[in-house]
């Protein structure tokens, strides 16, 4: 029995050691702590960061919690990243206040912090590389208004009501409608955690409750796909405007199920974050905000090289 136990232990430790990457000395190491990981959007940010790491000859790691509500898990990741003696740090805060004590520590150790995506609400980061979500959602509202002829009932399916992007995209859209389109009536704003299935169910209930509904805005990839699925299952023709990209969303636009969507530039966010970190280490002056840009894309321009470059599967 003892030998069996020892064997299991040995296999376990062996397996563990197998994953250990060789530690190289004297390299520039820049960890990026993101808000998420599994989502295609974050994988695209990661791809951009890896590209920049290659171009500038630095080493990066990219980590984020399983869900955007796990504020404390993200703090633990930040703490572990700082223990690795990084040269600079990329950080997308889930909750800025919670991260302040650790960011102060980074500042004291002269580690420049580059905020990305939703940024960090503090003066510690030397710059922030992000999408202007308010402006991008307002553009979505303009497109929606144009497509439904400037009047009628519409609804929103948003990923959540606590995160910065959730709040900004909702408010950016709603405020633009209120300011510019008095004849458009927002009948419902629902939250589906960015979960495809939940967002589908939400969409179906909105459609059933509002037979005259003309359009729905889905505020992130999961929400937008849910809206498409819900409309498809109930066989209802409505104008759907989405946000972000991904294989299913691109397909929905190609098939005409979705009118169009806002895309951020996730590859650019990742790339510019690492680039800014390298520049900060060299002592270059950086602007306080690096706008990574956004685009509206639909069937007509989805294959345009400029657009195709920022879309991801």
């Amino acid at each position, binding site marked *: *029995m003892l030998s069996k136990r020892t064997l299991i232990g040995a296999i376990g430790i062996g397996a563990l050691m197998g994953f*250990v990457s060789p530690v190289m000395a004297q390299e520039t190491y820049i960890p990026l702590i993101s808000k998420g990981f599994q989502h295609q959007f974050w994988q695209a940010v990661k791809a951009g960061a890896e590209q920049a790491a290659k171009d500038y000859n630095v080493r990066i790691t990219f980590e984020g919690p399983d869900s955007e509500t796990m504020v404390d898990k993200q703090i633990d990741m930040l*703490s*572990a990243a700082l223990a690795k003696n990084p040269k600079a740090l990329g950080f997308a805060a889930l*909750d800025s*206040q*919670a991260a302040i004590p650790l960011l102060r520590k980074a500042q004291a150790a002269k580690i420049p912090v580059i905020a990305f995506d939703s940024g960090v609400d503090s003066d510690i980061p030397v710059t922030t590389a992000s999408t202007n979500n308010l402006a991008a959602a307002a553009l979505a509202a303009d497109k929606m208004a144009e497509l439904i002829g400037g009047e009628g009932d519409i609804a929103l399916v948003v990923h959540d009501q606590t995160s910065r992007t959730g709040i900004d995209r909702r408010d950016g859209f709603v405020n633009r409608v209120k300011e510019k389109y008095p004849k458009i009536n927002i009948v419902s704003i629902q939250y589906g955690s960015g979960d495809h299935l939940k967002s589908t169910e939400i969409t179906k209930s909105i459609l059933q409750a509002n037979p005259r509904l003309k359009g729905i805005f889905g505020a992130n990839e999961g929400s937008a796909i849910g809206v498409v699925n819900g409309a498809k299952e109930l066989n209802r023709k409505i104008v759907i405007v989405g946000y972000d990209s991904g294989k299913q969303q691109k397909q929905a636009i190609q098939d005409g199920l979705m009118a169009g969507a806002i895309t951020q530039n996730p590859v650019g966010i990742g790339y510019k974050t690492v680039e800014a970190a390298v520049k900060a280490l060299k002592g270059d002056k950086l602007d306080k905000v690096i706008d990574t840009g956004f685009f509206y894309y639909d069937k007509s321009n989805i294959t345009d090289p400029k657009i195709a470059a920022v879309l991801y599967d």
Partner: protein
Amino acid sequence: MTTIVDKESRSVISSAVLSQGTWQKILAFASLIALMVVFSVASENFLQPDNLIGILQATAVNGVLAVAATFVIITGGIDLSVGTLMTFCAVIAGVFLTYWGMPMPVGILAAIVAGALCGSVSGTLIAKMKIPPFIATLGMMMLLKGLALVISGTRPIYFNDTPNFPMISQDSLIGAVLPFLPIPNGVLILFIVAIVSSLVLTRTAFGRYTFALGSNEEAVRLSGVNTDFWKIMVYTVSGGICGIAGLIIASRLNSAQPALGQGYELDAIAAVVIGGTSLSGGRGTILGTIIGALIISVLTNGLRILSVAQEWQTVVTGIIIILAVYADILRRRT
């Protein structure tokens, strides 16, 4: 004659239980040490004081939740609501301190009392209404998640008006006395909760009934014990401990995050199981649970320090949980 045999067999049983418990602790502790050795050899950054304190701090919340879950699991029950109950209690602290401007001790008391009350509701659903623990606490998990969002208005509640609030988790009382040991208060609270819980479980009638409920509830009931009452008490105590976890996490983040909490029950249950507490009840120790929680934190932190790709971190964590429980089963078979 029969009494002698009885006494003898009883002492045999008790010594077997004792040695089993001791083995349990040694095995779990050895796994923890082995993990730490592996990580220390693999990276010089692992054994740094800052990192070790980071690991302890990352254990505080899960450790306290796991202690809460240990009580319930020893009775043969399960509590899926520990994570969202923690969040709910944090929000209650936020309501008392930030919305109503009450003094800090009132907010602390409110969070713990709220936790105990919710625990007693779970206990009543299970003991009196005979709803299976899995279902009753699943219901409570969702109910509390929703209530936390409703009460907070779906926004984080910050504790900026209570400047001493971050002290609960972030400052270091130990460090004030022993400057070379700046262990944060959140960790100190974990240790205190663990020691008190351990004493309660091993030295009090409440503790004995907790184990008895998990071993043979029917026999306990037939011997005239009010099992319903003790069961409700177990869930109440567990709920109160979740309230303490709520205070630690709120203090660490300086905010009550209403959307957080779901998924934390699984980490807590994993810690309990790795620590050798049986999911079928009647057997378990707080020390084991604490070691289980430490194993999870050390593993998570160590893999991060080694820059293991995140998808592989999850794979390795899963394997270790299975190995830890399997090693426990092997040991019990011998």
